[in-house]
């Protein structure tokens, strides 16, 4: 058998590569230069706008995917879209992105409903169903793609850009398509906001209220599929799932309200699109899709660490603070036990006797003085009236100043 030729699927072009073709050859460009370029350069403007809109719409719909615990559905759908693209091309013989995206949409929806079928009708678990559909559809897509590449048809070149996405190939028409889909998404979101929200948080209750849960469910899933398919051209099959997840996962850390989360997520998505394009354009040989994904991952990382209510940093700070509070209480309780043995609670004792007690530190003592629980006189301490009262109630009720 003859060895098959390598398909030179050079998957990645970057915004800079396009500029290189125009003999601009910038190794790096500074920010002001970049901003003027965004407004003057057609390609860069289109890409920036396109990735921003894409980030916004995937971020918005991704919130629902994350909250519905369908995070990996995005991954499965984006892979499942590949055979649809190939079949659409084989049937129509055009590379019109709308036709191909329609094929991708149909095959993505097919994949989604098969996943549901597997989970519902068999005892296979959701992870198995997702992995199955993902790999089987993608493999079938690859079979078709390689089959198409062997055909004597010059038109087929460039189909493989859907594998990894090529932001540089975005046209103004594509951006318009994205914008209109985003508009429709927004409209549907606003109209069905109440239904989506209630289905998200209490599906059984929704059913008892008489909503058609199946319809709402299919509606939101279809829009998620639509958003994924839209992003294929820009980010590609492999990395599309991160576009859906990362902004939503980041937004989730900052708020507990759905509306805020959807809004924030859209903002995060759009900013990672813009920043990713900028970074990719300012460097040589940096593919846009992966950079956008990495920027979104940075958003997630920052949110994980610095979010005030859920973030790891503040959680650690709260943890330390709680521990110090506990030590303070321990010291106070110890003092209380000593003071109890005397008639006069204000009877002074030496600080030394606290030293064999673990909860005692110089700082906690200062803290107690500051709270007016303890009086310090030289190396002697004594409980105040207030301190005695607090200490005697320490384990009876929640102290009011406890955070």
């Amino acid at each position: 058998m003859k060895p098959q030729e390598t398909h030179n699927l050079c998957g990645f072009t970057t915004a800079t590569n396009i500029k290189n073709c125009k003999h601009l050859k910038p190794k790096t460009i500074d920010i002001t230069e970049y901003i003027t370029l965004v407004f003057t350069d057609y390609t860069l403007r289109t890409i920036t706008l396109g990735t921003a809109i894409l980030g916004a719409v995937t971020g918005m719909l991704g919130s629902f995917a994350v909250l519905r615990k369908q995070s990996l559905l995005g991954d499965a759908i984006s892979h499942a879209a590949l055979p649809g693209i190939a079949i659409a091309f084989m049937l129509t013989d055009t590379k019109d992105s709308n036709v191909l995206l329609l094929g991708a949409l149909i095959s993505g929806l097919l994949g989604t409903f098969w996943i549901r079928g597997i989970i519902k009708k068999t005892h296979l678990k959701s992870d198995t169903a997702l992995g199955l559909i993902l790999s089987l559809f993608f493999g079938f897509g690859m079979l078709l793609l390689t089959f198409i590449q062997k055909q004597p048809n010059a038109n087929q070149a460039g189909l493989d850009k859907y594998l990894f996405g090529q932001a540089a190939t975005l046209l103004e028409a594509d951006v318009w398509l994205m914008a209109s889909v985003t508009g429709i998404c927004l409209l549907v979101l606003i109209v069905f906001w109440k239904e989506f929200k209630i289905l998200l948080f209490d599906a059984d209750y929704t059913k008892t209220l008489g909503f058609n849960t199946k319809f709402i469910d299919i509606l939101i899933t279809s829009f998620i599929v639509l958003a994924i398919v839209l992003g294929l051209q820009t980010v590609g099959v492999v990395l599309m799932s991160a576009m859906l997840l990362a902004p939503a996962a980041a937004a989730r850390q900052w708020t507990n309200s759905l509306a805020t989360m959807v809004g924030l997520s859209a903002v995060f998505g759009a900013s990672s699109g813009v920043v990713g394009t900028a970074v990719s354009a300012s460097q040589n040989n940096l593919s846009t899709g992966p950079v956008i994904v990495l920027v979104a991952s940075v958003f997630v990382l920052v949110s994980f660490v610095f979010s005030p209510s859920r973030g790891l940093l503040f959680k650690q700070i709260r943890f330390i603070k709680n521990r110090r509070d506990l030590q303070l209480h321990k010291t106070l309780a110890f003092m209380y036990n000593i003071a109890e043995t005397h008639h006069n609670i204000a009877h002074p004792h030496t600080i030394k006797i606290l030293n064999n007690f673990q909860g005692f530190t110089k700082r906690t003592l200062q803290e107690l003085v500051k709270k007016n629980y303890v009086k310090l006189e030289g190396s002697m301490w004594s409980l105040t009236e207030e301190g005695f009262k607090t200490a005697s109630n320490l384990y009876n009720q929640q102290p009011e100043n406890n955070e």
Partner: protein
Amino acid sequence: MSNAQIEIQLIACIVAIACAIPGTFLVLRKMAMISDAISHSILPGIVIGFFITQDLNSPLLILLAAVTGVITVVLVEYIQKTGLVKEDTAIGLVFPALFSIGVILIAKNANDVHLDVDAVLVGELAFAPFDRLLISGTDVGPKSLWIIGSILVLTTSLLFAFFKELKVSTFDAGLAASLGFSPAIIHYGLMTVSSITTVGAFDAVGAILVVALMIAPAASAYLLTNELKRMLIYAIGFGVCSAISGYWVAHVLDASIAGSITTMLGLLFLIVYLIAPNKGVIAVLYRERQQRIEVSLLTFLLHLKNHTEESERHVNHLSEHINWQKVRATSVLELALKNNMIQLDRNIVSLTDKGHEFTTQAIDYIITNQDSKIEHMKDDFFLFRG
């Protein structure tokens, strides 16, 4: 068949077997998506290894990639443990980030590196026989055959050595821990083996096919049996069958071998999914329909027992009263007649002695709600048995 063809099929079969073994456990442990994550996130490991050795088949590269795979698992578990996001979100966040790093590393050094992302993702089996392993000048076969062969030997020997431990920890992690097997060691051991298999196979078949070969045979086998040993054997069988048939389909279509093996796996799963006895979709739908009719029949018989007046027992009235469609009413009536539960007298339905006995028992069951009763009843009056 030429020598190269036989070698390609041999490699495909060995890859299929090597993947099916860890795949079975991944499916049973509900960690199938982890294999997808690993297959993507080993990319930076491969790239860095390639930068160091400049050889796609070097053991260091496999080692580095396996380490990256385990790092992925650790990262996913760490993120999950913080409680900030759910497990599946954690998986979905980690692997695209690592994959992106790999892609950027390749792109940044694209000029002087002979490594293509597509090759990593999709692989090309057709080239495998051309990369020969030479030991002191003599040709001992394709390199990838040796690599995947030694991985298979490693996997099978681990499987035989730790079968009991794997089995216990898969089905009852608590019991395994209390018996003294560390679930963590088994977990990470399995993850390491999966990573090594993925890396060993990616060169030949690509990352996506590795996922397919791990999950699809195991999932199809799981629909056919509930026994671990049998499931392993079925999974291996399915993998080998699809590998060979996939090769010939690719040969005919002149398309990607990896893609066509996956397609064969897909067809196989589709068939099993539809017609598997007991667990296939057709069997499930049939059972659901029968159960629905059985419940209707029970409702119908109880209704008859409750009403002695003739007006309530008229055939037409029944379908109006219980609000059934005509077809359903007829099928229920027929079934009841077939089981000798009722008799028809001028369109008036009444219970037979057998029907009376049955409904009395059914009411008893409903009141006392003891499982033993229904089992006995099912034996006595199994409604679809004749």
